[in-house]
């Protein structure tokens, strides 16, 4: 979690999501290493689920292929066993609640700690359930539970979410499943009004797909999360290394030039 907190002091953070087990079962550590080498600041490793109901067609498809390839949570932890020998950037697991529940929440947290995972994002584990049943377990294993905030989240609820957080808030750019709409739905005024006085920094995700939307998001927040268009980028022909590199440099080089960030 310290790793995560240190990184979050910076701006223009590029956080990349990919689905573990896609395109090939054993690509996980290679993708992570290539992402770090290409300049990604953080990584979200997706745990595939049979019924990813907050995801659009691209991540649905990558999840389906990953499961057909034989991906499981057990195997993922196996693949991540030695990841901290080479990788220093923050790593976060993202997945739906049921596989975690079947694995055992406490065992899951223990395995995350063992592997050097800094946080988790579980979109269908709502705030109240988390606070009532799981917060103490997550904290015991120093695993940050990163909570989502949507354009429809009320001011009062946002405050509660902020209080339950301990690293960053994941703002969803628009009322949308992943990869469906573009850029920010809220006006800047409204958005800045909402985040004023929060304890934790914000990263923006769901509608971010290219240099433009990334730069725009960075004007609002400490950085942004790209998933769908990265999955698309590694789906085509070519060497994984090159595909990762080309994609990251199409976003990050440009972004670093934009230092008109308001933050």
């Amino acid at each position: 979690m310290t790793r995560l907190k240190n990184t979050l002091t910076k701006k223009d953070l590029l956080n990349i999501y990919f689905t573990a087990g896609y395109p090939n079962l054993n690509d996980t550590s290679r993708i992570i290493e290539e992402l770090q080498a290409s300049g990604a600041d953080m990584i979200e490793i997706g745990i595939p689920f049979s019924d990813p109901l907050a995801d659009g067609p691209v991540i649905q498809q990558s999840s389906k292929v990953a499961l057909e390839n034989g991906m499981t949570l057990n195997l993922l932890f196996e693949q991540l066993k030695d990841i901290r020998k080479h990788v220093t950037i923050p790593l976060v697991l993202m997945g739906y609640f049921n596989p975690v529940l079947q694995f055992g929440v406490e065992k899951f947290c223990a395995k995350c700690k063992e592997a050097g995972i800094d946080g988790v994002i579980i979109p269908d584990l709502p705030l109240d359930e988390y606070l009532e049943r799981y917060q103490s377990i997550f904290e015991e294993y120093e695993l940050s539970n990163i909570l989502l905030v949507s354009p429809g989240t009320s001011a009062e609820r946002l405050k509660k979410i902020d209080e339950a957080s301990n690293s960053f808030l994941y703002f969803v750019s628009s009322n949308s499943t992943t990869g469906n709409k573009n850029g920010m739905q809220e006006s800047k005024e409204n958005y800045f009004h909402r985040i004023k006085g929060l304890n934790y920094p914000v990263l923006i995700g769901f509608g971010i797909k290219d240099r433009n939307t990334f730069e725009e998001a960075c004007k609002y927040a400490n950085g942004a999360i790209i998933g769908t268009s990265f999955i698309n980028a590694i789906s085509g022909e070519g060497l994984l290394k090159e595909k990762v590199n080309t994609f990251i440099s199409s976003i990050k080089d440009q972004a670093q030039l934009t230092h008109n960030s308001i933050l």
Partner: protein
Amino acid sequence: MKTKRNYYVNEKGYFGNFGGAFVPELLYPNVDELNQNYLKIINEASFQKKFHDLLKDYVGRPSPLYYAKRLSKKYNTNIYLKREDLNHTGAHKINNTIGQILLAQRLGKKRIIAETGAGQHGVATATVCALMGIECVVYMGKVDMQRQLPNVERMRLLGATVVPALSGSQTLKDATNEAIRDWINNIDNTHYIIGSVVGPHPYPDMVMQFQSVISEEMRKQLLEKTGNEEPDYVIACVGGGSNAAGAFYHFLESERTKLVAVEAAGEGIHSGKSAATSVLGKIGVLHACKTLLMQTEDGQITEAHSISAGLDYPGIGPFHAHLHETRRAEFISVTDEEALGAALEVTKLEGIIPALESAHAFAALDKMKFKTTDVVALNLSGRGDKDLETYIKHLNAVKQH
């Protein structure tokens, strides 16, 4: 004395260990809006009046309770059929859609979405949307669209857009995923009319309340016909569990009444092609609800199988999971073959062609022992028009043997 149990939903949205609202934050505002308002609205006198007027004049309620003489003779007992098949649109589903469309109107929603398996809930939703002049989009698994084609045509005729769900097994589970995704993308103007006692709280409780009119009427009708409001058995099929929840509701606290939930065993409980969740399921979270689900060890939801599209779901609602855990209801499973056999038999004995879903409830009669004095109330959840093709195929196959 038995200890009195609580079968109802608690303030956190749970039936015992099951239920809750595992919604992504994107849906929280909508689900919370429903949760804050549903009881208040449902209990308003003006809502109740509109609801009951429509049930009476539009749906044709109360649905009759019919003494099935020849069937009773066969089982040497007293079988009463609750005729939900005689409702407008041919099944119990419309009790819920009438309730939810009135609620959606009160909440100012301009667009309705729904999932459907057999197409009965889709038709019932398209019907109330036509009635109220509201836009309607129905998600239906591609496989189900093929096996329930007449219902697809009916929905289209009623002005609904039917969108095929192409993911997974292309059945009810996948249609539900697509409907939830639609809702996430259209939260401002859309109400999602869920068709069974599944999904996030308050849906299971809300749908059960709308369906509870079934057992409310049954009590009065039984009193009239048997001199006792309470039967010895209430039998109903369970997909998600809405017709069973409605048929059980007003008997939950009865000491006399045994509740029997009938699940689809598909090609056999352990054939790998089954929907017998109470046997094969484990607690988990799907469609924003913690309940019994068929799943792998790794927590991936497995595909259900039943010849009946309406029972082809890898879970049961949290209310039924609770009845199962507390043993308030007995669960029986019935194979495709047994359901087909029962459907053809009821057709011949009583002149009633039941829906394939309801045929499962009839097939359970064969697996039970009754006394001659028993009063057995069976919820005939729907009619079989939509299943004629399947029945004719089966009949021809039987003849060739």
